[in-house]
């Protein structure tokens, strides 16, 4: 069942085209990974999907309905967004940060049910001991968990994550990825995730979209997309692709001599 349909989407910053003719579907309950080199348009695509950016051409539909037909609050009840970890963070308790995720559901006042939902999310992500601490004092991995919790508090049907693990050490990378998998299964959420690390993508997503210079280069399951040839063409890197546990793993060897990777 198709949850999200992206058709012929185009977007530019000023006169710089960033996305061209992007079309794909996202199935209900799957984790879709979006990979590609820096500047390929992954972040931009994600932000078009939840209308942080407005597409110039093309249409994005959720459950058959055009997202531009929703008003902001309606959309916020359906789509949760976890930004890249490099964005600025201001002092606030973890609890209050997660409480912000309830904003699409609040009347003009925050009620018992909102507090309850925040507590549920804290419990699910196992961050009780962090709850009353200030978010600026936490490590990167802990902060990412809080941002995921905030998006979860929205009770979304779709979760959009922009490189949720790019600034984390390997242990936190695994933890965060495990949490995302768990959430998706337990709550039946659909996740669209831009992933920096090819091996993490390979292991944790159901399908991959490989982007290159604003266009879709390849779509499919990890074994089909993560091939040595694709990696050479898109990333400009000679790599060895092996297999572990039914999924490919990638070992980069050296930059390719020829190759048309954009920078």
């Amino acid at each position, binding site marked *: 069942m198709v949850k999200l349909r992206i058709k012929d989407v185009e977007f530019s910053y000023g006169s710089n085209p960033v996305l061209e003719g992007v079309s794909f579907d996202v199935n209900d309950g799957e984790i879709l990974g979006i990979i590609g080199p820096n500047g390929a348009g992954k972040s931009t695509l994600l932000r078009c999907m939840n209308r942080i950016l407005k597409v110039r051409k093309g249409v994005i539909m959720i459950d058959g309905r055009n997202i531009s037909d929703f008003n902001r609050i309606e959309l916020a009840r359906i789509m949760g967004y976890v930004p890249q970890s490099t964005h600025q963070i201001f*002092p*606030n308790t973890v*609890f209050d940060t997660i409480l912000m995720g309830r904003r699409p559901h609040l009347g*003009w006042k925050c009620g018992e049910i909102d507090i309850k939902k925040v*507590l549920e999310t804290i419990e699910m992500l196992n961050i*009780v001991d962090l709850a009353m601490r200030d978010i600026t004092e936490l490590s990167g991995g802990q902060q990412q968990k809080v941002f995921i919790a905030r998006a979860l508090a929205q009770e979304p049907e779709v979760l959009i994550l922009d490189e949720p693990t790019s600034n984390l050490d390997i242990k936190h990378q695994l933890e965060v990825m495990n949490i995302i998998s768990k959430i998706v299964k337990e709550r039946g959420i659909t996740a669209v995730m831009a992933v920096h690390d090819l091996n993490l993508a390979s292991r944790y997503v159901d399908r991959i979209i490989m982007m290159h210079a604003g266009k879709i280069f390849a779509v499919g399951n990890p074994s089909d997309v993560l091939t040595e040839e694709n990696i050479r063409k898109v990333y400009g890197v000679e790599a060895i692709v092996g297999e572990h546990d039914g999924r490919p793993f990638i070992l980069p060897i050296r930059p390719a001599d020829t190759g048309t990777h954009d920078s």
Partner: protein
Amino acid sequence: MGNETASIRKEMERLSDEYKRFVGRKISFIVTSVLLIFITAGVSVTLGPYDISFIDAYSIIFQGMHDIIFRFHNIYAFIQFLDENYMVKEWVIWQQRLPPIVMGVIAGISLGIAGAEMQGILRNPLASPYTLGISSAAVFGAALAIIINLSIVRAADERFLIVVNAFFFAILSSSLIYGISKMKNATPETMILAGIAITYLFMALTQLLKYFAPAEEVKETVVWSFGALSANWSEILISFVIVLPCVPVLMLKVWDLNVMSAGDEVAKSLGVDVERTRQLCFFLSSFLTAGTVCFTGPISFIGLVSPHICRMVIGADNRFLVPASGLFGAALLIAADTVAKIVISPVIIPVGIITAFMGVPLFLYLILRRSREYW
């Protein structure tokens, strides 16, 4: 397994209680601020060159309130009655001491709330109600009235011209910012840049006027720009009417303000119309500020200091920060005014000079003591 879930339940309950206490502390601070207002006002009303004892002062206030409500039904008749009957003590309290105090409460609340709002919408802890140019525009309006007697209305009373001009130009400068933000975009960067331009525009115009003006009028303009709590009951009433509708609307928007602190993108993803909210809160804060500045002149630092101190004590949750900042600002302003009255009594120093001094220890404290980015 059963034990594990039981202990998780317990932890969650403990957390829930802790959060309730956390919120409770903030509410206590707000209540304390209200008490502080009464205390500082209470002290201030007993101070002045004419000697009135504590007990007398309070009984006069209560008696007066009773008389106004039940006997005279309006305050002017009451004061005239005092005047005609040579009731000196009562007259001193009601005509001389109470008006600046009441004006101080209104101005303090306005500046405190406007300051918290500006810091929230611009995501900048150094923002104040004047960051986007209101004070320099108001001063220009006053200068226009004082120096060349020019105004959008015709009147004999110079004070009236000053008030109307200051309000007019304050709102004009805000409308210019609003217009620029509609044309270009309403990001903090755009608004701050526009605010700087507006500030310099009106500063330059004022300097031009001062350059060609006689010394007396220059001095009058300069003194007006210090900020003082002189006001009469009519002005207090007008100020109250301007300020009153702004506050509830701003309070309705505090959640959006909270969410905006996480960044424009995250705020949009949470359903906030970031640009509209920024423009609306800015406009309402401008009304708050203009509605008091036109009577008092630009009183410095309350709009900057009050939100800062409140944030240090109760954190950045705007549901509590905005009202706390207003109430604490009122207490702060009245305290400053008390100092202004007595430090070289019987001469009264403009309260804006005292508040300007208040900024010094605060910023020294911030420089020396802050271990992290506060705000």
